[in-house]
């Protein structure tokens, strides 16, 4: 199954019945999958919106009434959605937003890239907020993390972003769908479904009282602290005896893993740390690895974005090098292997 369709199937199995989207390559298969399975079905909604701006606001509406709702796009369209994401975050509404990244800035290229890391992990729109950001690196993980995204969104009343890329969306790999949500999900508390038997409620973000807004911001960040504590995840591969650890996410991590296996075969002690939650970033895990390894290489398909989180986590401990290919260029594992090997020898780790 292709990655885009796998997200669609996983979303439906997670109880998502509302999808709103606007065509953009390389994620159209997802929109089309949802059109096939959600249009003209009772209790389901599929709308091809007139723009991404409209689509994210439709998600906002569906979330207001308690639906598990999703939208998807690729980089230029995600920029348009930022306004809506800011409102979702402010109103504490769950939603799942998929970004199958492509090269940028501007219209860029339709090839896979990782240049929206900053946008995704720093909130992205205006105001002081965060979203949970998940970084899958295989078709199987696209499916698994989509299911997790809906759970996290509901649990913490927060928009969750799945940060994939063009290659993950387009490629086909075997995939297994693990669990299924109950056919009828309980109606989320605080859904605005009419004030029957209760006083009417308001969902709003605007207030003329700064201290009221400050309290809202504080409460958001209290929740963010909780999320950091409970939901941070990452994968490590052969880090125990490693003298050099590569840190990469998504498709880049997958390429790096191939490169590391090649280097290991030649006796170089190299490991991999792959953040799965990009926000919250696995700071503690990076620190833990730094206890035994002094040399890091951050590899990204951009000019260096996640590296800032790595540096913040390390706080001066260890040495961090960087290798990046921007613009939608997908480096081969052999290229990354060369980079790693050179660094390994340069730093006298052999």
């Amino acid at each position, binding site marked *: 199954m292709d990655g885009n369709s796998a997200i669609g199937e996983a979303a439906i199995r997670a109880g998502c019945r509302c999808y709103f989207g606007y065509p953009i390559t390389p994620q159209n298969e997802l929109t089309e999958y949802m*059109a096939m399975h959600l249009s003209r079905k009772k209790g389901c909604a599929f709308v091809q919106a*007139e723009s991404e701006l409209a689509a994210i606001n439709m998600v906002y509406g569906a979330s207001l009434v308690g639906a598990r709702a999703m939208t998807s796009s690729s980089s230029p369209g995600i920029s348009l959605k930022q306004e809506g994401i800011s409102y979702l975050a402010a109103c504490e509404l769950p939603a799942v937003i998929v970004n199958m990244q492509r090269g940028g800035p501007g219209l860029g290229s339709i090839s896979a890239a990782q240049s929206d890391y900053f946008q995704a992990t720093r909130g992205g729109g205006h105001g002081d907020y965060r979203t949970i950001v998940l970084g899958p690196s295989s078709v199987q993980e696209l499916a698994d993390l989509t299911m997790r995204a809906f759970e996290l969104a509901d649990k913490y009343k927060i928009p969750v972003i799945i940060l994939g890329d063009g290659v993950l969306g387009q490629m086909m790999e075997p995939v297994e769908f693990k669990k299924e949500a109950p056919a009828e999900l309980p109606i989320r508390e605080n859904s605005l479904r009419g004030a029957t038997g209760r006083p009417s409620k308001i969902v709003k973000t605007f207030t003329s009282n700064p201290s009221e807004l400050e309290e809202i911001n504080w409460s958001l960040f209290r929740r963010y602290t909780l999320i950091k504590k409970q939901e941070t995840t990452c994968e490590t591969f052969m880090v125990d005896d490693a003298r050099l650890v590569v840190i990469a996410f998504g498709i880049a991590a997958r390429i790096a893993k191939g490169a590391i296996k090649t280097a290991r075969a030649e006796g170089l002690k190299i490991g991999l740390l792959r953040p799965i939650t990009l926000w919250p970033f696995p700071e503690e895990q990076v620190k833990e690895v730094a206890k035994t390894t002094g040399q890091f290489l951050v590899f990204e398909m951009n000019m260096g974005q996640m590296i800032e989180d790595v540096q913040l986590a390390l706080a001066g401990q260890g040495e961090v090098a960087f290798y990046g290919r921007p613009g939608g260029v997908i480096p081969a594992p052999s290229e990354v292997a060369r980079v790693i090997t050179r660094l390994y020898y340069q730093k006298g780790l052999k």
Partner: protein
Amino acid sequence: MKLIYSRPKSLKKAVFHYCPGCGHSVAHRLICEVIDEMGLQEKTLGIPPPGCSVFAYNYFDVDMAESAHGRGAAVATGVKRAYPEIVVFTYQGDGDLAGIGTAETIHAANRGENITTIFINNAVYGMTGGQMAPTTLCGMKTTTTPYGRDHLLEGHPIKMSEILALLEGVAYIERVAVNSPSNIRKTKKAIAKAFQMQLDKRGFSMVEILSPCPTNWKMSSVQAWKWVDEEMAKVFPLGVFKDVTEKKDAD
């Protein structure tokens, strides 16, 4: 010997990347011919959109500046307001103009921006692989209307020429097609007239071109040309919807 066919000066020597039978190629050529004949090559700025015509700047030998999806009319507004001497045209698909850019288009037209819009209506999103466009016909199957467009769910095909003709700021609107030699001749005349409106500072002018997309309609070129007449033109009748120069003659 008389030269009866040559490449227009403002059309670059490049092989079109469009699919065989695609209306974009014809439309490009006609615009270039008009630009040549009106002597506008050095005064023109074209604004192509994301869409199959995203590489239009490879073909037009005039200044070209890409716009974000749907924002052509807004970009052209800025261009023309800042530098009225330029002749500016936007080149937009139906997803671009009638979907994501409806607001920009309607408001530029309503303000009577002195710009020219070439609107390619092929009833689908071509570039992204044949999804429903706002102009997709009822019953038509696309990748996002796998069961056919149903007006109860997805609305009726939107008729931009008719809608825009209602606005005061609009000088000229005509709907044409590029599916036969006589229609192609009419299209060229319409494009020339639209540019003339701009030169005469009459306000917003637009030519809507019904344009075959054999690839996403899943037809041969010949079938697609026929389909424009037999199906599309029924929903989108050809003709002039507004012409302020005519109105003047009347009163």
